[in-house]
């Protein structure tokens, strides 16, 4: 950034010099009612020598996650497999619009709903439904109005609102994020100007959770830090703490007066059960702690493109919740004024109708079920094909859309270059993009990449 600013600075100096000469030409004797054509000819000359104000801007690199799909599209090989972005696919590897969503949309059209601005905080029916889904409809914190909920632009937008609130009201406070975490988390806190650091999470030796490291790092953080936790189905690893571990995590957070900050993007999608997937969040609510929860309906309702989610701030009193909500509105207004209505209405309709709600639960169980089945099939294929005795059981222990394969960059590159399997460089594969039919092929690719990739890579250099 700094270097491009400098080059722009010299560009503007140059511009000013040129303008000094041209100014006379442009202004002297110019009749304010001169016909547009002739005056623009004069000004055209002035403008033609000026370089772009954006000359020094460099091409930004493609997004590491979304860029994978772009590369996949460009590949013409018929064996190609897209295990990049986390969007659910059917067994036929097609995108899936939930039946219950189609039903809701048709209902909305029939009713002739209007398109008026939502309030800054979003659709009231949606806000009510989303908080109840998360905490349970009869939870005391909802009854006592201790939760400030505002509709946000899916998970990202909700995280961003919270980050802006943290920057404003907790100046200097740090957010601790897991190592690794979803790539965009860092960008969000950077742009919101909230400092962050990492706590240990993934242990490459066990392809499991580095629980000791996690607890130690949380303990060491300055008191009152924000701890970003994945509510379930950790992205990118798929590795979640056990219920017992969650208790210990809550203990150390309370001990240090830290503020938990949950990212819940997969409620209902991880285990298939909305309640089970909310267990970690509800554990913290039971403790009477104040904390943040960002929600997304991209995956569990397949509403990716509608950008529907929410930020919930659990406070110690209804008064605090009112004040916090008012400040979240103050952040949203200069960002986009008020949120989009369509996705919010879909959620409110689905959750608000008992029949549709049950249909949703069934479809969600189906989606989560397909992923579990595919996990099992992949594991079985790996075990039957790999004669090295490597322990592949980590695949079954992981949960959710993603699996951290333990493959490093060179091995992941081999997956793509030799096998046309598209995945992110950190070794993450999206099981949502895998079909039963392709499990054997994928197993072959993983086994080859794991055992041989470094050989392929080393050989030219050894020569």
């Amino acid at each position, binding site marked *: *950034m700094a270097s*491009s600013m400098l080059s722009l*600075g010299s*560009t503007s100096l140059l511009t*000013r010099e040129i*303008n000094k000469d*041209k100014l006379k030409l*442009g202004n002297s004797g110019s009749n*304010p009612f001169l016909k547009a054509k002739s005056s*623009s000819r004069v*000004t*055209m000359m*002035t403008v033609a020598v*000026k370089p*772009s*104000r*954006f*000359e020094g*801007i460099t*091409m*930004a690199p493609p997004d590491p996650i*979304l860029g994978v799909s772009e590369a996949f599209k460009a590949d013409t090989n018929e064996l190609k497999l897209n295990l990049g972005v986390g*969007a659910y696919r059917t067994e036929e590897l097609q995108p899936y619009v939930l039946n219950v969503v189609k039903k809701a949309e048709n209902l909305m059209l029939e009713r*002739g709903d*209007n*398109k*008026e601005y939502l*309030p*800054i905080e979003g659709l009231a029916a949606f806000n009510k439904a989303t908080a109840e889904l998360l905490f349970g409809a009869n939870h005391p914190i909802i009854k006592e109005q201790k939760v400030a909920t505002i509709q946000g632009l*899916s998970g*990202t*937008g909700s995280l961003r609102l919270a980050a802006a609130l943290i920057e404003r*009201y907790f100046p200097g406070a740090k957010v601790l994020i897991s190592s690794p975490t979803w790539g*965009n988390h860092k960008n*969000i806190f*950077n*742009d*919101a100007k909230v400092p962050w650091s990492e706590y240990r999470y993934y242990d490459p030796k066990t392809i499991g959770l580095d629980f000791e490291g996690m607890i130690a790092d949380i303990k060491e953080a300055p008191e*009152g830090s924000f701890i970003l936790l994945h509510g379930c189905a950790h992205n990118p690893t798929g590795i979640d703490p056990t219920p017992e571990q969650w208790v210990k995590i809550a203990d150390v957070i309370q001990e240090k007066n830290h*503020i938990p900050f949950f990212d819940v993007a997969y409620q209902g999608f991880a285990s298939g059960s909305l309640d089970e997937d909310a267990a970690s969040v509800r554990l913290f609510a039971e403790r009477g702690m*104040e904390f943040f929860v960002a929600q997304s309906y991209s995956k569990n309702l397949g509403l990716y*493109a509608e*950008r529907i989610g929410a930020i919930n701030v659990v*406070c*110690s*009193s209804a008064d605090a919740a*009112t004040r*916090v909500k*008012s*400040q979240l*509105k103050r952040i949203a*207004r*200069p*960002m*986009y004024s*008020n*949120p*989009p209505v*369509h*996705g919010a209405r879909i959620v409110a309709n689905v959750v608000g109708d008992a029949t549709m709600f049950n249909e949703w639960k069934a479809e969600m169980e189906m989606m989560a079920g397909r992923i579990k089945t595919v996990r099992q099939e992949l594991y079985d294929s790996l075990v039957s094909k790999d004669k090295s005795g490597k322990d592949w059981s980590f695949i079954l222990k992981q949960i959710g859309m993603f699996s951290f394969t333990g493959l490093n960059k060179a091995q992941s590159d081999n997956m793509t270059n030799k096998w046309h399997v598209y995945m992110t460089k950190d070794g993450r594969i999206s099981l949502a993009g895998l079909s039963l039919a392709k499990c054997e092929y994928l197993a072959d690719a993983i086994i080859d990449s794991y055992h041989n990739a470094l050989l392929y890579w080393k050989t030219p250099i050894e020569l």
Partner: protein
Amino acid sequence: MESVFSNVARAPEDPILGVTVAYNKDPSPVKINLGVGAYRTEEGKPLVLDVVRRAELQLVNDQTRVKEYIPIVGLADFNKLSAKLILGGDSPAIKENRVATIQCLSGTGSLRVGAEFLTKHYHQNVIYIPKPTWGNHPKVFNLAGLSVEYFRYYDPTTRGLDFQGLIEDLGAAPSGAIVLLHACAHNPTGVDPTPEQWEQIRQLIRSKSLLPFFDSAYQGFASGSLDTDAQSVRMFVADGGECLIAQSYAKNMGLYGERVGALSIVCKSADVASKVESQVKLVVRPMYSSPPIHGASIVATILKSRERNRTPGDWSHIIKQIGMFTFTGLNTEQVAFMTKEHHIYMTSDGRISMAGLSSKTVPHLADAIHAAVARLG
């Protein structure tokens, strides 16, 4: 244990959107809402355009449609058509691929993303905005990291444009400063420069290398003609210079709640435009990842069929029935009196939205104004 939110104060309601909040609370049967700019029918009801309903029906019934994430910059069709709408189909800037267009969340979102981009990549971090302007403008720019200065715009003595003041103030602005211009139907005054005045403004801006940032929220809505309402923007683009444009479809397509808009950055070259677009993506990704699909699909469907059928749009009959904002010249005291005694809801600067008025309610408004002026002259 003390709340970690103890130092969080209660924010006041937004000055514009809060008017509707107060209106909703009032039980009086004669209340009128002249606050937020949203079109109302003669019966005082919101309106969804027929052309929008038809497009929605088409979209919802299309079995091939999916809800996958759209690109960070939004729908490609929507972006192309939006650029064409504001710049004209024959615009050389478009033909030369010099325009980076990014779907954003209506006007506000387009302004915010544009401002964040400028803070990161443009050497001047000051933006000049007209006095007065839409209440949300200074907040959008401040939070994006720009500092805000005002240029004279409205002359209360003439209730018209203070053109001399405008020229002086922009003339005194530092070279390269950003300048916010309302493309047409200035909000809140309803006062626009004439074409001749626009030409002078353009010359001044270009001579000082000021960077224009257009806010186009009423294209087609002001005069009834999409082309006429885009003249100011097209004049600037025609001289080959650079500018930013924030477009909103909230009013002209009645898509308020769907949050549909576009940010266009007109650059000197295709190469620069492509680099600019890549950097704008980095602003969007940590803000909301990608924009919402629904409203943009509706707009794309309508604009595509408009292109095919060459009809100028079905909006003219609606435009003639409604106006824009009017600055009444009433002061805050008089406004407060009208709200309290006559249940008229409007912003404290004396702005009324003509869209909220119908022939039935005009007498009530007239009486209220008369009473306010008589009492508090």
